[in-house]
């Protein structure tokens, strides 16, 4: 057994990485006959000025404290935050689940084999789900509970120091929050939740969070209306462009209604779709109009961007955005909100925020996949599956399946419109994360993009190649259907990194596009394989 990192190494007083993932022996890939590209190294500048003491990658760019006093203050802040995590007034939102996860782990390691990151890394000890949780747990029993000799016997010991805390901060961003570990735990302990709560501690007490999620994410959304930076003016302009473009492409008149009071449906897309995958919102507009749905989008700030990054790291940001989503719907007096193809947006608004929305804000929320299934099976669209006669597989976004239970609608649709549809193994509620979950898909600082493509997305890469094993070298284009913007961003980067289009003609896209591609009324060739 190779010597690995031990828990006590987290306390090492230096800032050197505990191990080097960039040169580690990762889990072997069956179809890789050439080596993956080498990792981009961390620059000297980053090494000198930031905390990179975990695995030779860096997601947070945490500045190194300049004095002992600064370090001590940071440690104090962490301890204060630690206490707050276990107080009802500060964390009623997740207190019961967190306490249960703190107190019942028996260290059986049943969760270890469920974690795709742990497996993909070649079983690097720091990525073991219990490694991270054990650090927090020991800190909890020592600093929040009474500590003492009996506690040390029962729970182990730990000494909080800045190097440990800095490493822990980075480590909280090496988990996709996919919760496969929680699914397999016989005690009901949730290591994904623990990573989530750690992130909250860092953000809510110490103001530490990835720029992509906070300043350029939730804050930008609250300031101008969208994390993409689109204002109401630019989003309407872009949608106009898309409507025109799609009308040209399909031969059908496509028009997106804005701010229609009393509409049945308020559709909210992940605004990223509009910029990066415009064929998706275009397809939705076409489908909803063809099906005679009375729908609208909202140009109110935040009302046209379904994202809610706070779900991954901060309760205040989460609540703020969720309430504003519901508010946009309330103002338009719609009958229901339909969430576009975005996994975390589903979970945020339909599930986690559910109990926050009461009275007039408690407007029903439905998945777009459910609505699309209803439309496709109703016969309102004239569909010709022969137009989708190429291999298709389905990537299940974690937030839709394991975390929300929306599993069948997308499959009912695919079985009708994609004659060569085949499942990945495993799939449904047992799916694997794409590797972009919990915000990683939009994070590429330093060599974190390499981490995402080589470790985070490794399992998914294997699954994709397995799913198309029978036609890998046939030369025909193959479609990975991924009904989630974040997943698509990750798949785009993953496929580009490993040259999947060049080598095997494997592309990806959403679900709505496949539906439109099968519509007889539409000019053939809606799916533009160039945009793989």
């Amino acid at each position, binding site marked *: 057994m190779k010597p690995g990192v031990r828990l006590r190494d987290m306390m090492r007083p230096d800032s050197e990485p505990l191990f080097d993932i960039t040169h580690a022996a990762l889990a072997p890939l069956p179809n890789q006959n050439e080596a993956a590209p080498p990792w981009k190294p961390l620059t000297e500048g980053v090494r000198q000025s930031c905390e990179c003491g975990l695995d030779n990658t860096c997601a947070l760019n945490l500045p190194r404290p300049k004095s002992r006093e600064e370090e001590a203050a940071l440690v104090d802040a962490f301890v204060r935050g630690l206490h707050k995590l276990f107080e009802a007034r500060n964390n*009623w939102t997740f207190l019961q689940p967190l306490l249960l996860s703190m107190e019942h782990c028996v260290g059986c390691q049943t969760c270890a084999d469920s974690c795709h990151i742990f497996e993909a890394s070649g079983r690097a000890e720091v990525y073991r789900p219990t490694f991270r949780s054990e650090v927090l747990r020991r800190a909890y029993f020592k600093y929040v509970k009474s500590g003492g000799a009996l506690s040390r016997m029962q729970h182990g010991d730990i000494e909080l120091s800045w190097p440990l805390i800095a490493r822990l901060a980075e480590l909280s961003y090496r988990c996709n929050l996919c919760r496969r570990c929680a699914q397999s735990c016989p005690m009901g302990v949730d290591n994904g939740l623990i990573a989530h709560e750690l992130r909250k501690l860092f953000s809510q007490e110490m103001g530490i969070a990835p720029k992509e999620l*906070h300043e350029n994410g939730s804050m930008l959304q609250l300031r101008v209306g969208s994390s993409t930076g689109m204002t109401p003016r630019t989003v309407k302009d872009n949608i106009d462009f898309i409507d025109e473009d799609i009308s040209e492409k399909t031969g059908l008149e496509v028009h997106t209604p804005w701010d229609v009071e009393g509409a049945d449906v308020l559709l909210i897309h992940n605004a990223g779709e509009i910029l990066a995958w415009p064929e998706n919102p275009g397809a939705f507009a076409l489908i909803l109009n063809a099906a005679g749905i009375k729908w609208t989008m909202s140009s109110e700030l935040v009302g046209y961007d379904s994202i809610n990054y706070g779900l991954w790291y901060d309760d205040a940001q989460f609540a703020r955005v969720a309430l504003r989503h519901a508010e946009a719907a309330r103002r338009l007096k719609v009958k229901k909100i339909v969430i576009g193809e975005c996994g975390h947006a589903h979970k945020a608004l339909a599930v986690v925020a559910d109990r926050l929305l009461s009275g007039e804000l408690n407007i029903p929320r439905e998945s777009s996949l459910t609505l699309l299934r209803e439309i496709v099976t109703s016969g309102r669209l004239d569909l010709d599956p022969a137009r989708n006669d190429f291999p298709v597989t389905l990537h299940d976004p974690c937030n839709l399946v394991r975390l929300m239970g929306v599993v069948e609608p997308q499959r009912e649709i695919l079985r009708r419109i994609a004659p060569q549809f085949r499942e990945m193994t495993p799939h449904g509620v047992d799916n694997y994360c794409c590797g972009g979950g919990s915000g990683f898909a939009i994070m590429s600082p330093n060599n974190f993009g390499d981490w995402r493509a080589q470790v985070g997305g490794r399992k998914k890469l294997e699954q994709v190649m397995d799913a198309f094993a029978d036609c890998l070298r046939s030369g025909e284009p193959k479609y990975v259907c991924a009904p989630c913007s974040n997943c698509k961003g990750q798949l785009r980067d993953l496929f580009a990194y490993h040259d999947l289009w060049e080598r095997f003609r494997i592309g990806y896209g959403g679900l709505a596009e496949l539906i439109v591609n099968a519509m007889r009324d539409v000019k053939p060739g809606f799916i533009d394989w160039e945009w793989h």
Partner: protein
Amino acid sequence: MTLLLYIALYAAIACFVFGCARRVRQYAPLPAHLRWELYPVPHEPPTRIQHGGSYFEESDWWTKPRPRYRAGELRVMIAEIFLLKSVRESNRRLWWSSQLFHLGFYLCFASCSVLIVLTGISFAAAPAWLEPVARIASGFGRAGLALTMLGALVLLLHRIRERELRDYTHPADYVHLAVIGAAAALLLAGGYSVSAPGALGLIRGAFLFDSGVHVPVLLAAGMLMALGLLAYVPYSQMAHFIGKYFAFHSVRWDDAPNRQDAFAGQISSSLALRPTWSAQHFGAAGSRSWAEIAAANPATGEARK
């Protein structure tokens, strides 16, 4: 000496019950949390349980009734409790010993329960079948002790020999396993002692505080060890059976939608709480409630409405 044993017995039981109640009181009254369920949720109807679907798969789900199939939950609980289903599926190597270990407990518990009932009957009457049934029950109890002992030993070996388990096993965990194994061994051996009083005799004695019952040293040692453990269980990880109930019922399977504002009352009291988080964007300022904080906009400085 026997009297001390009886006192220890009642004290341990009281301690156990009190400790468990304390744990339950720790978890039960916590404020309603935000939804954090995990699929598959077993109380969903059979058509959805197969693929782990939720009511979100139904069009306009809020207009439809939401039947809950408690039998589904029960089925999972039984499989989890008695067959350690998730360990079997995801950690087969460890499952054998853990299963034996827990099965041993269940047999002991069942055996004790039956024997207590039989003792109760014996006060009123003395049917012919009492002794034979008691012997069978004792037999199961002995088998349980043997399984527990074997399971504890193998689990201990796993945790000592395997690095990935050893790193996450604390000193107390080794002690727990060792003491459980030792207690089981002593009880087993003690039960076979020449002068052992027999289960019915012992239980009857406990009810009557009969100091005339003689308990051999080996058995007494085993009993004291086991009773000490029993009293201590709720104060350690061994009480995971309590946490597990809440983890599954209150979190993993809690998919109750906020229809008709069912949660509004609980959540509004939580929203009135005043958090103290320090980050600037959070905007706690020491005196604002969650409701005010959520209405505020740290990016523009405005409040909603």
